[in-house]
């Protein structure tokens, strides 16, 4: 660890909020500026509040409730749970309520201004780290922690150590901030930021939506929080001291970055797209709090405009929120995607977690723009999920295989069509659930520095 007298963003925020001068390793009890609650935890949260003897939440104006994880309700059991949730929200008098179709909690929390920079926000979903997109200390917690936060308006935290991620240079065409954060996950690993806060430096004037992609993906490194430095929303005091101490520093030169691909079933098994070219896919998912915004849909539309997706592939597009949905309708992006053959889903978490929307069949191969590729995440445990950027997703939908999107973006019309025709011909007519895709995924895993893990072992046992 580098030594210094200064404070990281996590130390600054938790010192200010706890009213003590605290450093990494200290325990604090801090007031919470907002609690985010989503549909799948409501029963446990209500039970927790009841057991705590709390008839009502501590401050209804500081609670946001969202129906997004399995929405609209896919089964009667879920519908019952949603009904209970609506009744609870009404009885509590909570005004900040977004029902099915309004969008993913994290997207709405940030874009509708519910995240106050420099404060602590806790959420019932693990990707609550997303609130660091505007400079909030956002942490995901389980249902009982959320019930306690709702009852007391406070939570306890161990002040985390921090990891400094610095970007330099600018992204080249066809390379996105998703590729940048996947490159970071490749470097740090799924547990490399366990209990830590990831601080992002050098993001320049990155749009708010892209900052959500960065902050939210810190969850995939085990981080307690992920905070972007110097956002336009942040107050002047919210700047890490130059002599702050960090566990580790990671530098990524954006100008030399290639599109990245996460190989199933680990988010940190990441390779350059050039190593994964030709892997066939059956279904492409464009959406989630990671990549379901207008800019992501526009990137896909740039590839798909005036064309039809491969007859071997289904494409599902789920805008992250109603605002993103309507913006993409207004500028014609959704029209382009629909004309290309996409299924457009109502805003929400969609198939990212396999509870609603197009769940995966056994041994299907998916290219997803979301944030997790665990075994069984999107449906059958025998399905495989590759993670990539919206550009990679669009090219996969068009050709039926994983490919580097950059040549497509540079090609003339004729060359573009030739590229597509060649890839489609190479892929053939079989479902991607062929031995070939299984072998390719294994070859890629063998070729990269090995990360051990239950998930990989599980795959070997099943094969």
């Amino acid at each position, binding site marked *: 660890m580098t030594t210094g007298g200064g404070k990281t963003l996590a130390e600054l925020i938790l010192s200010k909020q706890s009213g*003590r001068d605290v450093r990494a390793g*200290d*325990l*604090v*009890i801090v007031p919470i500026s907002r609690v985010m609650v989503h*549909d*799948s*935890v*409501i*029963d*446990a949260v209500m039970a927790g509040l009841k*057991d*705590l*003897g709390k008839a009502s939440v501590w401050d209804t104006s500081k609670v946001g409730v969202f129906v997004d994880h*399995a929405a609209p309700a896919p*089964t009667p*059991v*879920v519908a019952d*749970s949603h009904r209970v949730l609506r009744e609870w929200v009404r009885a509590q008098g909570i005004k900040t309520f977004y029902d099915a179709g309004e969008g993913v909690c994290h997207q709405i929390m940030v874009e509708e201004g519910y995240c106050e920079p420099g404060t602590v926000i806790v959420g*019932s*979903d*693990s990707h*609550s780290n997303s609130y660091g997109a505007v400079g909030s200390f956002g942490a*995901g*917690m*389980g*249902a*009982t*922690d959320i*019930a*306690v936060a709702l*009852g*007391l308006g*406070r939570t*306890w935290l161990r002040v985390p150590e921090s990891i400094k991620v610095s970007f330099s240079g600018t992204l080249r065409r066809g390379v996105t901030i998703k590729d940048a954060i996947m490159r970071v996950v490749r470097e740090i690993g*799924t*547990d490399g930021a*366990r*209990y830590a806060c990831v601080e992002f430096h050098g993001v320049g004037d990155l749009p708010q939506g892209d900052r959500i992609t960065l902050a939210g993906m810190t969850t995939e490194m*085990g981080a*307690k929080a992920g905070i972007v430095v110097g956002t336009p929303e942040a107050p002047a005091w919210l700047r890490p001291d130059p002599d702050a101490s960090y566990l580790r520093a990671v530098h990524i030169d954006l100008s030399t970055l290639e599109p990245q691909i996460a190989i199933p079933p*680990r988010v940190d098994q990441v390779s350059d797209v050039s190593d994964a070219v030709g892997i066939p896919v059956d279904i492409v998912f464009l959406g989630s709090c990671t990549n379901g915004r207008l800019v992501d849909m526009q990137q896909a539309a740039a590839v798909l405009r005036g064309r039809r997706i491969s007859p071997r592939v289904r494409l599902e597009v789920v805008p992250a929120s109603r605002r993103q949905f309507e913006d993409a309708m207004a500028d014609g992006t959704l029209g382009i995607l629909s004309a290309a053959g996409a299924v457009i889903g109502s805003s929400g978490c969609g198939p990212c*977690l*396999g*509870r609603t929307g197009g*769940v995966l069949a056994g041994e299907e191969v998916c290219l997803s723009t979301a944030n*997790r590729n*665990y*075994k*069984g*995440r999107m*449906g059958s*445990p025998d399905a495989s999920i590759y993670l990539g950027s919206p550009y990679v997703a669009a090219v996969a939908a068009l050709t039926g295989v994983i490919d580097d999107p950059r040549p497509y973006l540079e090609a003339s019309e004729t060359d573009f069509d030739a590229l597509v025709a060649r890839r489609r011909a190479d892929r053939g007519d079989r479902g991607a659930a062929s031995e070939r895709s299984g072998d390719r995924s294994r070859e890629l895993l063998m070729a990269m520095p090995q*990360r*051990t*893990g*239950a*998930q990989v*072992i*599980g795959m070997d046992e099943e094969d």
Partner: protein
Amino acid sequence: MPRAWVFGDDLDTDQMVPGRYAPFMVGQDKFQNYAFYDARPGFAKEVRPGDLLIGGENFGCGSSREYAVAALKKLGVGGVVAKNFARIFFRNCINLGIPVVESPDAVTLAKDGDEVSLDLAGAVLRTPAGNATLRPLAPFAQQILSAGGVVQYLAAHGDFPKVD
């Protein structure tokens, strides 16, 4: 005698209870029957009260789903011993009163199906291959765990344990 169920590194909560078997998908009274449904078929039927889960690094990573821990609690799992834990899973266990203890060598000493015993006071996990060392819990977490969980602690004391 409790038995050991041994897992590897980076065991995620989707493996503990897949999202499609969440309580609000299958019912509050049934979800525990799907614990390790894909990762360890038969677990929910065969696990006995007091059995211990033993793991490697980053145990319980991924989704914040507390029902993964609630399922273990309903099945009577007596504790989790791993090299280290993902943060939300760790908090969820403390909050629901399941002992979670770090041990550098439990995962190498304990074999799947071994008869083992967790001695929190003595800070050891006894296995047929020898005693694994346990790292003592922070007093703050220990106090909550001793009360049986955070709700029980708060009900008894009205506030969190002191931190400073």
